[in-house]
């Protein structure tokens, strides 16, 4: 019983991150609402983070914080020989990546606010229709200039 569950468990994180990535990816492409796209991006990115953290896991490992306080090098070696630490490298990478993700989200949200101020909507198709109406070939400036000359 527990053996089967162990097998499922062994791959379970991978299944979950695949599912989450697909959900997030789908939301990024298919959802018309801009906020939903950003939510999707967040899910997508966290799914990848989950993958990295899963990589770092070592069975029976503890958090990569040395367990002895500050007693010096010898103690450190002793501690290492007794304790298995999980892989710290993916953690560091993901710390960086989380920051990148939040920065991207912040920029995306700022863009969304600007878009809303300009078009009064967060739906992609509404915005698109509005832009078509405006005849994108002529920029604002060119149109004013033309009118000025006539």
């Amino acid at each position, binding site marked *: 019983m527990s053996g089967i569950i162990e097998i499922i468990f062994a791959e379970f994180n991978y299944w979950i991150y695949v599912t989450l*990535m697909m959900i997030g*990816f789908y939301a*990024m*492409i298919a959802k018309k609402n*801009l906020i939903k*796209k950003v939510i999707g*991006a967040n899910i*997508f*990115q966290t799914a*990848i983070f989950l*993958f*990295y953290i899963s*990589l770092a896991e070592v069975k029976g490992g503890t958090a990569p914080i040395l367990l002895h306080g500050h007693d010096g090098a010898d103690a450190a070696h002793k501690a290492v020989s007794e304790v298995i630490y999980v892989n710290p*490298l*993916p953690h560091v*990478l993901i710390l*960086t*990546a989380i920051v*990148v993700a939040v*920065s*991207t989200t912040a*920029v*995306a949200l700022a*863009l*969304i606010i*600007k*878009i809303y101020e*300009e*078009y009064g909507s967060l739906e992609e198709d509404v*915005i698109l229709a509005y*832009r078509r109406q405006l005849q*994108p*070939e*002529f*920029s*604002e*400036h*060119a149109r*004013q*200039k033309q009118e000025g000359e006539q």
Partner: protein
Amino acid sequence: MTGFDLITDHLPVLTVVIPLMAGFLTPIVGWIDRKLCWYWVMLTMFAVLLMTSSNLYTVITSGTIHYHLGGWTPPIGIEYVIDLLNGFVCLIIAFIGLMVGIYSIESIKKELPNKIIPFYSIFLLLITGLMGMTITGDIFNFYVFLEISSLTAYALIAMGDRGDGVVASFNYLIMGTVAASFILLGIGYLYAVTGSLNIADMQGLLPSIYDNKVVLAALAFFMVGFSIKVGLFPLHAWLPDAYTHAPSAASALIAGLMTKVGAYAMIRFMFSVFTPEFVIDMTRMAEILTWAAALAIVVGSVLAIAQSDIKRMLAYSSISQIGYILLGVGLANVIGMQGGLLHILNHSLMKCALFLVAGAIFYRTGIRNLHQFQGLGKKMPVTTTVFLIAALSMIGVPGTVGFTSKWYLALGSINAGQWIFVIVILVSSLLNIVYFWRVFDNIWFGHPHEVEHIKRDEAPLSMLIPMVLLAVLCIFFGLFAYYPLHYVLEPLSNALLGIGVLP
């Protein structure tokens, strides 16, 4: 030990750290006086140009430079590696950055008068990001700098035309996030199977596990991610809007550099992280790339013909030109590779010049629709001449840079036995003629009664200098393609394809 010695040892890291420092000190400089910002940027970019030139010179004369950040030996810490490939690309970045920097003073004053300080801050950070991506020898570090460059690019594009710029930027952001996530995932896969993040270390570890499915998946994710970043044809949807609606200076910078650095990254990942035999023989990824590139060349050119906004036309033309670079890379023979790599330089020069011209015309007249260009040849003779030279170069007239790379690409295609690509290259030259000639016609054959009263009204000197310089270089490297080819590209192509070893 003099101060100079102190610097020379650390040039690799300083090329990235100096624009970075300058970038976040810009708000403080601008706080003193906003006019100082431009001089600040000029100073920085000039220093960066000197440093990158020195780096490339060192690489050519005494071989690859390794710089261990934090003093940790490579697999432990992060390493900067400058070989011919990224020394070459860094020099391009620094040069184009300087040119656009000079140009920006007037255009930003007019287009974004309220946002001078953040513009320059972000400008420098973009240079930082691109430099960092190019120079690094560690794939996760690459990802971090990729994100710096992406975020700054979103910001620059969003500064453009009201509304349109922001929407373009948002679309780019979504696509860029997908691309970056794919790349991050690919990095994770490679890390999972090798345990290393260092490119050289990884290249040593990978060949024994090439039959591992994870490695193939990583390659696939990288290729898709970078294809989005460079705007390769079916994944190009973000590019035209982004190039069209960004402020003039930003368009020139992004068009001149972003996709080129993306292409660099693709080359780096294909040939330095993986090995040529994996990319060429085992997965045939190179061949797939050539077909996608050929498609991009044709479709990009055809779509460019349909445009009436000059910047949008140039954007579609970029899509096709990126195809040239990747075609050369994908051909995976020495001649084709040289053509592709040379086209990185050539396309930066030409496309940057063209976007600067488009910006200068917009600056003076406010016109971007090329049907309204009548008589511009009289009004802005120097600007339009630069346009002529750069466009002829795009077309591939001999004596200009465009010819040399097309020549190599076509020869490379013949060598690879792919005659169809020769035809693609030649046909796209014809299509280039079609869409550029419409502009020429309008510029030089304005109807006489309209031309008579047009007065000469040239763009300001600070805009003309970089444009003219780029045009001159277009011709210079057309006639003296020998220098980049002999000193950089030939040994480089051999090394990338595993035929020779870098000095």
